[in-house]
């Protein structure tokens, strides 16, 4: 019941969200221009609170990133010279969420912010930092929200265990149903066995 209430508030709360999205849709271009102008500074100014605020306000900007993006996701000028380092950067950026998009990795996203983070990753990797260090830095800045694969911690325990739990409960239910089902027909008595043998033997010899 509590969940339902919360879900209702969520739905009811969304007029504001809807209006903002509507506004950003109408003025989508202008909004992006602002973001794009600020983009060199964004990784520095972008705090966790900011990220959450913007992410909750304008998820539908994702649509713009996907539709109206002027460029491709990873652009030729971003690519690092060393293919091994570039491969590391690519694998790391596939794990990170584009903060202003809906469900896209920064590797796939056209959003300017995603590009900034891609460039940032390459800069740090170029300076010799490990992938883990870069990832840890980004998490400290943007929170777990940036990780497409949620970390294993108390809050996500239920999420990560859900497949195992569901499978376990299902298997237990199947086992229970099997146990409860009436036993198979009792074994044949010795007399019946003999009769069966006689019948099948007769069958074999005649056939």
């Amino acid at each position: 019941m509590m969940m339902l209430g919360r879900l209702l508030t969520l739905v009811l709360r969304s007029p504001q969200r809807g209006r903002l999205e509507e506004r950003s849709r109408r003025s989508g271009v202008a909004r992006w221009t602002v973001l794009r102008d600020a983009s060199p500074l964004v990784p520095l100014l972008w705090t966790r609170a900011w990220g959450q605020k913007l992410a909750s306000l304008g998820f539908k900007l994702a649509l713009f990133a996907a539709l109206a993006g002027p460029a491709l996701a990873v652009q030729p000028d971003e690519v690092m010279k060393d293919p091994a380092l570039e491969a590391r950067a690519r694998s790391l950026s596939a794990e990170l969420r584009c903060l202003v998009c809906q469900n896209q990795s920064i590797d796939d996203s056209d959003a300017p912010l995603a590009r900034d983070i891609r460039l940032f990753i390459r800069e740090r990797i170029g300076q010799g930092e490990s992938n883990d260090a870069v990832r840890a830095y980004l998490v400290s800045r943007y929170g777990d929200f940036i990780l497409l694969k949620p970390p294993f911690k108390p809050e996500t325990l239920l999420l990560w265990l859900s497949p195992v739990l569901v499978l376990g409960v299902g298997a237990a239910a199947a086992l229970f149903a099997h146990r409860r089902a009436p036993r198979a027909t009792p074994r044949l008595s010795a007399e019946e066995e003999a009769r069966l043998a006689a019948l099948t033997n007769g069958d074999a010899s005649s056939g």
Partner: protein
Amino acid sequence: MIVEIGHFALVLALAAALAQTVAPFWGARVGDGGLMDVGRNAALIQLMLIAIAFAALVNAHLTSDFSVLNVAENANSMMPTIYKISGVWGNHEGSMLLWVLILSIFGALVALFGRALPRELRADALAVQGLISFAFLAFILLTSNPFERLAPAPFEGRDLNPILQDPGLAIHPPVLYLGYVGFSIVYSFAAAALIEGRIDAAWARFVRPFTLVAWSFLTIGIAAGSFWAYYTLGWGGFWFWDPVENASLMPWLAGTAFLHSVAVMEKRDALKVWTIFLAILAFSFSLLGTFLVRSGVLTSVHAFANDPRRGVFILAILAMFICGSFVLFAWRAPMLKQGGLFAPVSREGALVVNNLLLTTACATVLFGTLYPLALEQLTGEKITVGAPFFNLTCGALMLTACFAAPFGFSLAWKRGDLLGVVQRLAFAIIVGAVTAVVGAAWLRGGSIFAPLAMGLGVFVIIGTLIEVVMRAWRPGLAAGMALKRALGLPLSFFGGALAHLGVGVTLLGLSGLGFGAETIATLHKGVPAEVGPYSITLDSVGERVGPNYKETVASVTVRSGDAVVAKIEPARRQFASREMSTTQAGLATLNFGQVYVSIADPTGDGAVPARLYWKPLVTLIWLGGAAMALGGALSLADRRLRFGAAVRAKAGARSLAQPAQ
């Protein structure tokens, strides 16, 4: 005027739906045949009325009648005719109208072909179907009226979202809805069976064709959507674990499980409660998908403009149908009589395993989709559950299910011989394992997923073929006799085999991902860029004008060594009406793989930044999906499942018997 007729027809359809709900239900309770038959007529009338409403909306879009709000917001007089038509369902209101149209088509099918069914069961099923129809018609009329007028009418419409101006939109949503909504019949029959407190093989036999239709369409719809995303979004991805994709995957998983368990029920009269549960689940997930897409609780690249009033309304519908059916289930299911004993190692047992894995996968997708939402509400903490999570959890479950598939397909009913099956499949197991090892060696420490999927795909394909051959042929049997035996096998067997082959083929396609190549480069005229085994050269860059867009086209030649293998033209389209541009990827299919080129806007000196991909085997992903759907269609053609076959046979027998009396 035509628009008002459409609106009026929709209101009348609401009344027809109400009649379809109340009369047959009451008739079934008091045993009044006349009242029960009202349901049949009401269903047909409702279809006619909704068809009129839909035709009116199509007409408004075709004639670009911008005095209708829906047309003004989602169409443009310059659009090609095909997009004017597909634009009808390229928006929230129109797509809801298509939803109820398909719902009423399925209702009418029950009304027309359900004569072989017990009268009460048919009446109850039509009543439940009518109630679903009523709820959604009320939803459309109260919150999302597509016939709303706009005064004064603008001279030009806002245009359809450019990304939707694609043949993909003409196919993907209607086919997907045929699948989603098709499960409503299954749901209605499950509810009717629970109300009646009785369920048997005849029930399963009648529900199975509808399940096959719904499932096949859902399969095609998902595959078509995935292919559309692949060529239109510009980075060659075909599945993003987007909430809305998940919303279509969940009914598919539940539906696949149901399809398997209803087969058990039809053949062996077992797993009744479980089958009913899955029937409810499949449609509940369809409803949940509708809620997620349209309420604004989750937004995604697929989102429709949303409105909280709609969200609450759909939540109410969702709560009514899901809670209602589960309450009914909890109350009535224990009364259903169980039949059909089986040993754990048997085809039934294997299908239970299949069901467990598929429903767990389904639950995992559900958890992954809603968990961030719930966590944010409860603790305020934001997390992301993205592709890596789903690939790991859901991927592992699905691969396990695929591994089990050939075993289940080869096991006998009631009591199977696992050792014998392993012996029979030994060849497939060995070839699959060798493929996986060779693949892993080839990749030298790349992802383990690709070789595993490839080995599994080979195993599933060969394993299924072995079973098909073994059904008809034993060593020593003459070829002519084997052919005769093969022709005697039911079509549904071949349908099942084809669907399993499709699974194997899709697995092969997925495994190709690990063997591909990608190059990000700026293409200069005449300078080749390498991607995988091919070299790609930019020949020229030009401009073209389409009906409502301008496009920049790069002409590109694909060469293998010195031989030209393909010429492709990736493009960027600019749509003036919405100041948007879209990417049109250039694709060249070579064997079963594709060379995929997508470009960005050219730089000043005529060079083009581009992403080049070589995706081996990628087309197999969708070909496998097509094979699965075709398998469903083949099963549907099986004689046993033809509507009313039993009735006709009986009538024939009677007419033969009569002269003798």
